């Protein structure tokens, strides 16, 4: 098989169209239940999806940029994504689980241990979608820092540049300290030496000793190194600053090209950031494109369905990502084209849940398998490790289990004895 085309699905509420909750098959009253999320993730897993991301934020959804709205005609409210992933973990076996966790208001120590715990509970299928929060209202939920209100026009004029730089610098520090916490226990730190009364070899548990501009963490994680060691870190990026964050710190970036030319420009910018900022010992940054998808067997049926939803919503769907309403076959052509142009994979955002997820699982993935860019889901061994144990998310993404930062020849800093 040639270079594999990876496929992720982004789960959010009842889907990415603001009127999707009004579809006959939608389950809007169940979005606060474990069963709802389990059903979605199981459908994705059965279909052979590599991983799901779960959207989140520390404020209500809104139709305006970085500020709340008072709308009652769209889905509002959500559960904590990391805990959804944790509850799904023991009941799934193959699919990667990548919750969104904010770096702006959270404690890096808790973020690190929570993701490690997800990695234990899923036996190596955890990942992290890093997100910053520029919302003034969200900052008032914490009362620790003030973020000036910023509207989209001002942001587009570049007025938010200093804020964005600060939030992404902080995110970079948080990822760095989380990675150190993940490696703070060597894999063989637990020795269970009954003869000498030693459960632990203390010399293999390391201080993180990170003191940055925004966050400081001194001690080791309370959680031992997890099955993957380093769960994959992913980030959505639309501009230079987040491209740089991804290039320096992440394993995978989601980008939002709207045309082949756009894709070429974005890939060039991402590769430029990588050349400048990425540690050459690390594997290359994986690049996925995000697409909002609405799928029907007939093209005009898809267009009609989108128009109906737009009418219900009172406005055409707008998104940072390209919106594609069409047949699974046409989507597959688009995916293969992007793959040929250098993308490692796609993250599909179903406009309607579960309808478009079912189409991805039932039609899109089988077509990709037939095209020879994915192994058959039924005999899914993609990336199964040499030892024969179940594939981790890193295996699935083609990432080796990394050496521990504290034992590799290039230590992050001098580590306290």
């Amino acid at each position: 098989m040639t270079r594999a085309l990876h496929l992720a699905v982004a789960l959010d509420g009842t889907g990415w169209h603001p009127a999707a909750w009004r579809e006959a098959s939608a389950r809007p009253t169940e979005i606060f239940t474990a069963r709802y999320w389990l059903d979605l993730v199981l459908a994705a897993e059965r279909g052979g999806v590599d991983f799901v991301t779960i959207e989140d934020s520390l404020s209500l959804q809104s139709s305006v940029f970085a500020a709340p709205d008072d709308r009652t005609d769209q889905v509002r409210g959500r559960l904590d994504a990391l805990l959804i992933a944790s509850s799904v973990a023991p009941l799934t076996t193959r699919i990667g689980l990548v919750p969104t966790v904010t770096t702006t208001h959270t404690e890096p120590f808790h973020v690190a241990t929570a993701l490690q715990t997800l990695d234990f509970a899923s036996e190596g299928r955890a990942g992290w979608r890093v997100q910053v929060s520029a919302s003034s209202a969200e900052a008032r939920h914490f009362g620790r820092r003030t973020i000036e209100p910023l509207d989209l026009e001002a942001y587009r004029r570049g007025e938010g540049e200093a804020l964005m730089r600060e939030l992404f610098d902080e995110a970079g520090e948080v990822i760095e300290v989380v990675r150190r916490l993940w490696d703070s226990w060597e894999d063989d730190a637990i020795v269970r030496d009954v003869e000498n009364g030693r459960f632990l070899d203390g010399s293999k548990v390391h201080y993180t000793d990170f003191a940055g501009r925004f966050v400081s963490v001194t001690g080791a994680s309370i959680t031992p190194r997890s099955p993957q060691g380093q769960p994959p870190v992913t980030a959505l990026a639309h501009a230079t600053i987040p491209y740089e964050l991804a290039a320096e710190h992440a394993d995978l970036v989601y980008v939002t090209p709207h045309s082949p030319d756009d894709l070429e420009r974005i890939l060039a910018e991402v590769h430029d950031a990588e050349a400048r900022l990425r540690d050459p010992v690390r594997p290359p940054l994986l690049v996925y494109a995000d697409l909002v998808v609405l799928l029907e067997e007939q093209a005009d049926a898809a267009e009609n369905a989108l128009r109906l939803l737009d009418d219900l919503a009172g406005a055409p769907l707008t998104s940072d990502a390209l919106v594609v309403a069409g047949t699974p076959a046409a989507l597959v052509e688009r995916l293969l084209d992007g793959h040929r142009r250098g993308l490692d994979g796609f993250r599909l955002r179903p406009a309607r849940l579960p309808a478009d997820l079912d189409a991805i699982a039932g039609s899109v993935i089988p077509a990709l398998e037939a095209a020879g860019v994915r192994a058959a889901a039924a005999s899914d061994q993609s990336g199964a490790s040499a030892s024969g144990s179940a594939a981790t998310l890193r295996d699935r993404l083609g990432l080796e289990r990394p050496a521990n930062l504290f034992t590799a020849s290039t230590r992050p800093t001098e580590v306290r004895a």
Partner: protein
Amino acid sequence: MSTSELRQVHLAAHFPGVNNTTVWSDPSSESQIAFSSFRHFAQNAERGYFDYLFLAEGLRVREHKGRIYEADVAGRPNTLAILAAVAAVTEHIGLVGTLSATFNEPYELARQLATADHLSGGRIGWNVVTTSDAFHGANFRRGAFLDRDDRYRRAAEFLEVSRQLWDGWAPDAVVADKAGGRFLSPAGVTEVDFHGDFFDVTGRATVSRSPQGHPLIVQAGDSAAGRDFAAQHADVIFSLHSEFADAQAFYTDVKSRLPALGRDEDSLKVLPAVTFALGDTQAEAEERARDIALAQTSGATAIAFLERIWGRDLTAYDPDGPLPSIDPDPAGAGITQGRANNAADPQSTADAWRARAEAEKLSIRELVIALSARHGFVGTPSRVAEEINRFVQERASDGFVIVGHTNPYGLDEFVDTVVPELQNRGVYRTSYENGETLRHRLGVREYA
């Protein structure tokens, strides 16, 4: 007394902790961190109809003499993430986690607890703890910032903000009227606007009202301030008073605080932590208790126990020999970090221990075993059940937090043998009520 008049026993299952109560050297001991251990432990407790599983937390790996402490089990999961995962493999048992009111922020923690309550169908509880020392603070954004005396004030304010957030969504806020196009009722979500000494929180919660409304609140404070806090805010006290007379005095004290607060006696449950050793005969049980104590106290553990008082390195001493004649180092206080048991006066403690060891002809290790023999129930399953029942009928407790000594099979035997004895006495449930919340099961205040 007819069965209907008998007070009912409540039981919690303490997941083995990271201290020397947990015997990691036992051949049956398995991983303290693998999910399979949590799954077994929780499912076994559920098989025994326990009210809830209890999980402790420590936010820094323990240190001794400036180094990572090696003799005890170490390494545990993130509390909320593991409870959410355990919820998925259990159906009825409550899930209570320890979470710091110092190193969390109310908006985020209240949201996570409400999420976990949804994901578990109303089975979540929060053991509220406070921490203030610089050792733990060094792992967090705020660092060490809290005066000791402010810990309970901050915790009370933290709880108040959390309750406002939990009340932020009306029970019927989600309408989801597809035809009419209304997802939320207009007045369904109210804005919290809290300004206190410790927190300023303005905005709306993101999680709809959870099955319990407010997760169960557990508290373990023992000081006067801690008891006041519990009487005011808690639904369950996790108590350390497990000797009968002491337990009864504590029980009477905290329950007597309730009427003035407008609470009835049963709205606050008191559950002391207790260990156990079982046998077919009393002699066999006592022999097992001795074996467990020996296993809990390795030579390294015994020396470290003394070093916490002596404040100096004692590794040159033989744990099976006499106590050191050298005196404690007054500058050595705080030799251990990450656990709370430093004596107020090391010299007088050392003098007393030396006197006892001499009088009873005890080695270092034997003394430490004698000193750390916590109250536990030792006997046949019938006798242990009778003791548990006596505490409950005579108002010394409302039940117990049962602490096993091995992971993850440490409570299996208790479930197999003691639980049926309790059931036979008509003081313990023989099934779970379907769809029941944890609050309802415990008979405490309900907010649904």
